[in-house]
């Protein structure tokens, strides 16, 4: 075995198996609330651009993961809720389970791991499920996060690209901060692409679409959600302090944008920039507007030439126009704040950050 073959063998150990078709897709509470356009874009890319079969079942509920990690939901309760979701998957004739939420992905991973280590617990949960719902427990053949799926098909997306992650004026690759949600790879490394040491799920997309990944000191630091540390107003200093630490660390590298695979992380890094800007007048970009924070579906959607207001990028607090201009994406500013059926909605105020 030569050196390259040896490295390929080692890297193969960091790869996860991802299904190819017939996906059972489940939405995320946070993404539905803050990035509804991203979940729709995932479905659009899968069905219309890649021709894949993706099933959604309206009977899917919250996994209760935010309640579980803020410790108001007990383990048997969340296990049984998850067991019901798996039962819905089986009822739909699917085996490839695809959650859109990283908290949920961690929950599903933890519960499958628990059932593997404690078979009696799995039996107990099957009985709870039967008693509460009349349903039968099933388990997925494959569990992959929606970012895993986009990663798997990144080259197919690149082949259909209308834009690259390249500055149209300079021809240079855009500099991208990638942020992986903690519960994607820190808990069950083998279920992530690249493991906890080399998470590659977003890097693979960025590089396939022409961008350049920034490596910065606090790259793997938590965004600061911390569940109860954000949910309770009195604790939010924890949450913003963690994001602040990341922003300060990435600032010298002049990122063009941030992309995250976790709904909470994307939302917090957007909103905390607004908070810090409002409190201190400080931003971490050179133009004083903040660094745009994207979901990976928004990044994929821009590459495919989907209209940014169809992607839902008007819901970001930090405006994305600086990035759209760099990429050369066409957009109509007058359509940014239109509602359903082009309903004219009142425009939100524009924010200008000013130092005291």
């Amino acid at each position, binding site marked *: 075995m030569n050196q390259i073959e040896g490295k390929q063998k080692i890297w193969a150990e960091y790869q996860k198996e991802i299904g190819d078709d017939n996906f059972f897709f489940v939405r995320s509470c946070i993404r539905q609330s803050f990035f509804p356009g991203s979940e729709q874009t995932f479905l659009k890319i899968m069905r219309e651009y890649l021709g894949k079969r993706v099933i959604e079942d*309206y009977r899917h*509920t919250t996994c209760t993961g935010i309640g579980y990690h803020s410790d*108001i939901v007990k383990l048997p309760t969340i296990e049984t809720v998850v067991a019901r979701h798996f039962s819905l998957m089986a009822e739909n004739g699917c085996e490839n389970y695809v959650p859109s939420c990283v908290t949920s992905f961690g929950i599903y991973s933890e519960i499958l791991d628990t059932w593997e280590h404690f078979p009696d617990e799995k039996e107990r949960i099957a009985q*709870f499920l039967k008693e509460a719902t009349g349903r039968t427990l099933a388990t997925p053949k494959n569990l992959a996060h929606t970012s895993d799926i986009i990663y798997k098909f990144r080259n197919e997306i690149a082949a259909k690209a209308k834009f690259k992650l390249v500055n149209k004026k300079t021809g240079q690759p855009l500099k991208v901060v990638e942020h992986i949600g903690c519960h994607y790879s820190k808990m069950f490394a083998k279920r992530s692409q690249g493991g906890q040491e080399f998470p590659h799920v977003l890097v693979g997309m960025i590089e396939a679409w022409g961008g350049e990944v920034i490596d910065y000191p606090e790259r793997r630091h938590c965004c600061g959600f911390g569940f109860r*540390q954000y949910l309770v107003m009195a604790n939010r200093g924890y949450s913003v302090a963690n994001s602040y630490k990341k922003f300060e660390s990435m600032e010298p590298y002049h990122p063009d944008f941030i992309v995250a695979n976790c709904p909470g992380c994307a939302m917090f890094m957007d*909103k905390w920039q607004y908070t810090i800007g409002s409190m201190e007048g400080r931003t971490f970009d050179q133009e004083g507007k903040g660094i745009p924070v994207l979901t990976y579906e928004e990044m994929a959607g821009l590459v495919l030439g989907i209209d940014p207001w169809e992607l839902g990028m008007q819901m970001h607090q930090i405006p994305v126009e600086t990035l759209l201009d760099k990429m050369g994406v066409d957009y109509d500013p007058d359509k940014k704040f239109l509602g359903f059926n082009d309903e004219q909605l009142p425009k939100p105020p524009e924010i200008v950050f000013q130092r005291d």
Partner: protein
Amino acid sequence: MGKYLSRLKQDLRVQEGLKACMNCGVCTAICPAAEFYKYDPRIIIETVQSDNDEEIEKLLKSDTIWYCGECMSCKTRCPRGNTVGLIISGLRQLSQELGFFVESEKGRQQFAIKRTIGQCILDLGYCVHASIVAPRLHPEQGPIWEWVYQNQESIFNKLGGNNFGKVGEGALAKHDDETMEELRNIFKVTGGIDFFNDIEKHSKRKAKEMGLGFKEEGIDNEYFTHVFTYNSNEHNK
């Protein structure tokens, strides 16, 4: 084995997360909470491992167990396979079952989480739903969120599949009655409702003890506002 450790060890998460700690402190080095709060995950595991009932009870009644953000960064680094975040989950559950959580400022906040996230799960089938992210409770969300919040139906129908508040597939769709019944039954059968009731019972007792107004439902009461907003500022390094 002492009464608290024997109960903790019934929790599968504690069984998975507590192997044999050698006190190297790498969990503390990587922990975001340890950087922000007066918090040391190494001490948590040392205290639990000590099997000293008096010390564990002190921990269960303290602010300390509520500092962790459950990011699980500790899991990636422990050379012995311990996960302090999982032990914290076990400690928090026991603290709530025994009613000890109301003895600390951070512990009392469980009532606010139950009345917001917990109620949203039982009422709507979501942990988080745009309708509960009210700008008055979330000023950090900014004016764009306020715009979304005030125009929810139009915006979610435009961006999320046009089933907002209706039964069907799409963002923030309504869950049908049968689905909600199944979800609530799961909470009943697995002890989830009893756990909620425990949080309520002990919080009501504490509100009376503290002389703060308490209502059986909702968030418009003095005790909720207090636990949701009060910060003694004695927690940070």
